[in-house]
């Protein structure tokens, strides 16, 4: 088992629309690589190119050092979870999961066992004899995951595999995927919009925008060292606040400060404003403060807090945790 992946100047155009605009990336054997980026930035397309489902317009896709641009998907030893699930509508859940193994000539007993393990892990045990049309959205998504993980390929591709699962199941499945990754040592490429998934699962996060890579790095590296405003804004939720550096006497054009690094006080602080809106999430509270100079700023507080909407509030950034960006949005170091 092996599975180092390398993309060299990979690009893709649908007709005239350039969707992937030259991506260079290497994913080491056994690495867990997460693609994040705004909707429509090309994550799925990139994944599909790795899978061989889309032609590569230019560039090379290398698996274990071999160019596989022209290798048929079936020959690539890759398993994939489709964003659209793509279940076989005529097969039961069991057969959906078992088909690849059967095709590979595994023994009946081994197949049954693999399916049992996967369906157990995904809480699909009760649905094994149903067909996709009789499943809920989340159940379908789990079948799609199950179908990928019963196999033991070199490389796993997951396209937003947990998006339709509830929180508990999502955590459980996430942990199972992490365990799978550890145990199999397979390389995984994973697309998600969920910050927690990205931060917890990834060895390496790839931030994409408009078909280009913005930054690649370990999760905390991106969190603490974003290369530009885009990455800074994209990693971390709620989003980083961007303040006008000039007004604060800070370096550069823009100063970035995460909502958890803004202190709020009713009486004094550097930036004055009015509370426009408060979101209580239980374990934390988000306060939205409208300021004249910097627009709407988000403050994140741990625990429950009461604020009066429209009350005056003062915010103080933790200068030590602030990021500074130039006019082009590049980080100043």
């Amino acid at each position: 088992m092996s599975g180092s992946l390398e993309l060299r100047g990979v690009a893709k155009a649908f007709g005239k629309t350039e969707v992937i605009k030259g991506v260079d990336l290497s994913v080491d054997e056994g690495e867990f690589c997460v693609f994040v980026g705004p909707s429509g930035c090309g994550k799925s397309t990139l994944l599909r190119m790795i899978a061989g489902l889309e032609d590569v317009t230019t560039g090379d896709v290398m698996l274990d050092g071999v160019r596989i641009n022209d290798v048929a998907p079936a020959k690539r030893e890759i398993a994939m979870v489709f964003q659209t699930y793509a279940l076989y509508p005529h097969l039961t859940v069991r057969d959906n999961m078992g088909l690849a193994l059967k095709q590979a000539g595994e023994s009946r007993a081994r197949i049954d066992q693999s399916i049992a393990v996967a369906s157990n892990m995904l809480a699909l045990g009760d649905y094994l004899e149903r067909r996709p049309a009789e499943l809920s959205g989340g159940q379908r998504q789990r079948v799609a995951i199950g179908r990928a993980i019963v196999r033991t390929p070199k490389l796993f591709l997951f396209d937003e595999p947990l998006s339709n699962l509830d929180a508990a199941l999502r955590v459980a499945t996430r942990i199972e995927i992490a365990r799978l990754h550890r145990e199999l040592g397979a390389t995984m490429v994973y697309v998600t919009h969920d910050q927690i998934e990205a931060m917890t699962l990834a060895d390496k996060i790839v931030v994409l925008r408009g078909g280009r890579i913005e930054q690649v790095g370990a999760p905390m590296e991106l969190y603490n060292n974003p290369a530009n405003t885009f990455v800074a804004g994209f990693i971390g939720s709620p989003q980083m606040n961007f303040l006008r550096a000039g007004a604060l006497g800070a370096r550069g054009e823009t100063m970035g400060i995460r909502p958890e690094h803004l202190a709020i006080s009713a009486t004094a602080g550097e930036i004055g404003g009015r509370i426009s809106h408060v979101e209580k999430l239980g374990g934390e509270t988000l306060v939205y403060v409208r300021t004249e100079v910097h627009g709407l700023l988000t403050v994140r507080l741990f625990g429950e807090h009461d604020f009066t909407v429209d009350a005056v509030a003062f915010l103080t950034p933790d200068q030590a945790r602030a990021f500074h960006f130039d006019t082009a949005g590049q980080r100043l170091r």
Partner: protein
Amino acid sequence: MARGKPVRWHVGVFLAPALLVYTAIMIIPLFGTLNLSLFNKAGDLRVFVGLQNFVTLFGDPRWSGAFWNALGNNFWFFVIHMLVQNPIGILLAALLSSPRLRMAAFYRTAIFVPTILSFVIVGFVWKLILSPIWGIAPGMLDWVGLKGLFAPWLGKAEYALTALALVSVWQFVGIPMMLIYAALLSIPDDVIEAAEMDGVTGWSQFWKIKLPLILPSIGIISILTFVGNFNAFDLIYVAQGALAGPDFATDILGTFLYRTFFGFQLQLGDPYMGSAIATAMFGIILIGVCVYLFGIQTRLRRYQF
């Protein structure tokens, strides 16, 4: 499926035009004709004879002999279509539907061309080709060193029906092909892609993924083949005449019916016995269609894409 309970006028509106035209122009005339099977001619009068015509048809060895001969031939005709035409049609459709096949449109059109031809032409050209006299088939067999295999197929009782069935297959293979092709096109790409990822490719992809998904269409072509074959007439008529020679070896229900109903040469048309035959044919086909509609179709699973 189920919608609200109030009167659903739209169902009527959707059905009405078809029902109207179809009932007025097809069903009423046809059943008027089938009704004749209960009558016969006594002198110049038409009299009700109940099932007497059927007693004649099945009881009189002259009629029943011809009927069973035609039915048997028809069955063979059907078997050949099922075993040759439909598998070839499905095979071609499967090949044509492979994505990015170059020249697919050309192949599709070329293979469909015979279906467009009129029976007159088909009969003419195949008689010409198979003719022992003008040398096309014998010449071509000679070419590949198989001249010994040649026989005047259309003139030999033991081959003629099979030969004509194969000509009919040649002509109509486009129909199953096109129907299956249309069905294959409606299979979502991503399901096929998933199969590719799962290593299910080529034939096993066809058997395991595509075939189950197009099964209802295969059901349709089977029943259409059945109905079409049991109503077939023109090709035999054009190639072998209404007497369906040699020695009635190619007589199928359609030619038997035509001869009887409309008459032939000195034989005058007998609408009463003709209708009796038509009713019998209708019964056979109806049984087949009912078996399909109630026994098979309801069991075929359909998938929505």
